[in-house]
């Protein structure tokens, strides 16, 4: 008993207890205000032989309760996915640091970005880059800016100017920093031209009209769209086509992808777009994160299949039979954990 008490008092044990209770408590879908009650009862089920003989132990368990009360159990699936991803990332990153290599398959769209810059150099014309039209609060914009860093670096190496058009002021200032830094890193600080960093108002179609003007009057040889785009996608891509530019697009907006696919030379689809900066940077930790995403998919797909098989068996068994209900419960658990 004494040993059990000291065990409980250690912080690690408290967290483990909380974790066990969360998993046990996740089975029924409960409302937020019921959380405490359900968890309290579930805790007894998980650790039935736990004896709360004196004040210290109940206080310990009480603190575990409080931890649980603060934790939003409805968000459990996201938490589990996040933990999986972080673990995978650290494992892979360590492996990479020890000299392991992360090899990725070829993506045509990535080569196309490099080719597009090369073509602009040959023609002596600028490259136009648009990091999407959303503000910095969208992670797609961050992904676009990461890609811009590499585009600006390659362009600076080739001595080709980059025009960046943005719809948001903060994105503009960040892009300025990025292009300045990339030009400096490539050894050509003069390749950063402040006047090529354009803000064209926050209104969606005013921005689009302004970009149309840039495309037709400054004649960029290549247009690279990487970020979050909405209905202006097709206006941009069609105008770019008429101006004769090579166009490489990338976005995670499913509703706009068809238009980019139809009107651009290359399109990075969804996750490809997020992985693009890893491909371009070739830095081990960044590559490790792409590989970790692959591993996460390797977890998700079997879980999904197990769920499908279980619910199918459950549906084929006579309604209300014991196994049918068990399997149904199992699938519900699966859905709530992942």
């Amino acid at each position: 008993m004494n040993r059990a008490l000291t065990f409980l008092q250690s912080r690690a044990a408290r967290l483990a207890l909380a974790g066990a209770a969360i998993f046990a408590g996740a089975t029924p879908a409960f409302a937020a205000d019921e959380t405490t009650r359900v968890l309290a009862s579930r805790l007894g089920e998980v650790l039935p032989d736990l004896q709360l003989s004196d004040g210290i132990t109940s206080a310990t368990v009480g603190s575990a309760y409080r931890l649980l009360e603060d934790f939003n159990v409805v968000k459990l699936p996201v938490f589990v996915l996040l933990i999986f991803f972080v673990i995978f990332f650290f494992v892979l990153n360590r492996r990479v640091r020890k000299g392991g290599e992360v090899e990725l398959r070829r993506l045509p769209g990535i080569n196309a970005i490099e080719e597009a810059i090369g073509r602009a150099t040959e023609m002596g014309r600028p490259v136009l880059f648009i990091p999407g039209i959303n503000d910095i609060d969208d992670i797609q914009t961050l992904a676009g800016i990461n890609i811009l860093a590499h585009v600006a670096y390659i362009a600076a190496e080739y001595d080709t100017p980059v025009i960046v058009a943005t719809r948001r002021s903060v994105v503009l200032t960040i892009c300025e920093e990025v292009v300045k830094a990339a030009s400096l890193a490539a050894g050509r600080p003069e390749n950063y031209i402040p006047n090529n960093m354009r803000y064209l108002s926050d209104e969606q179609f005013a921005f689009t009209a302004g970009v149309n003007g840039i495309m037709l009057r400054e004649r960029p040889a290549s247009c690279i769209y990487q970020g979050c785009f909405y209905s202006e996608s097709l206006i941009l891509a069609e105008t770019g086509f008429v101006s004769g530019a090579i166009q490489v697009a990338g976005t995670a907006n499913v509703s706009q992808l068809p238009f980019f696919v139809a009107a651009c030379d290359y399109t990075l689809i969804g996750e490809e777009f997020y992985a693009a900066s890893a491909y371009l940077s070739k830095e081990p930790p960044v590559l490790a994160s792409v590989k970790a995403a692959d591993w996460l998919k390797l977890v998700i797909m079997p879980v999904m299949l197990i769920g499908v098989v279980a619910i199918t068996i459950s549906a084929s068994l006579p309604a209300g039979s014991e196994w049918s209900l068990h399997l149904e419960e199992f699938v519900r658990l699966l859905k709530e954990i992942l």
Partner: protein
Amino acid sequence: MKTRVPIFITAFVGIFMILKFFVVTPWVSAVADELVQWGVITLAFAIILGVLNLAKINLKAVVERKTDWPYKAILLFGMVFMMSVGGFQWHLDMRAEEALSALTALEASGAAPAAVAAAVAASGEAQARAATNIFNFAFTRIYTPLSATMYSLLAFYVASAAFRAFRAKNLHATLLLVAAVLVMIGRVPVGGLLQVDLSDGTIWRPLVWIQDWLMTWPNAAGQRAIQMGAAIGMIATGLRVIFGIERPYLKG
């Protein structure tokens, strides 16, 4: 100072916000909400930088009489014009609000009906003034038609892009083409003209049905998987940024 501190700020704030997602403690949400407010206000301040960028580039072009400088002058005029009428509108709205709160106060104090009626009239007049003035004119007669028309260019571009891109060059392009054509026809009344009488007496409209099926099953599957992949990529990118593994904007 120049790179370490920002990396620390990003990581600290980012991890705190992730925590906020899971933790329901009131003070955590309160701090997180306040941080979001700070972010929103910071973004609003940055608009000053954007407007200055636009003004600087175009003013330079006008002063140096570069190509197309008269158009740049139009741009600058539009900007200054809209800012001024916006300010004027703000002033009128404040007046209307003042009149309204005066009216409410008067009513609450139980003043004479005549005084209340006068206040109602004054309030109504202030509201009407705020509702009809040059700002509304600029908004509905300049801003709205320009944006609606720019948007409607898409009706032409969906046609031209489809004609150019939907060519059965290979299997992939053919699938794209066939799905697009079937959905396009099944979506409009013309698609409903083709009808088949099934043996049990119900009428089956094959084109409409196929359109519906394509949208509900294969399209839903594709959309779902692309979104799942994108969400995974988003987690990866977001964590790279928060942990400072990718920070292009701090490399200078």
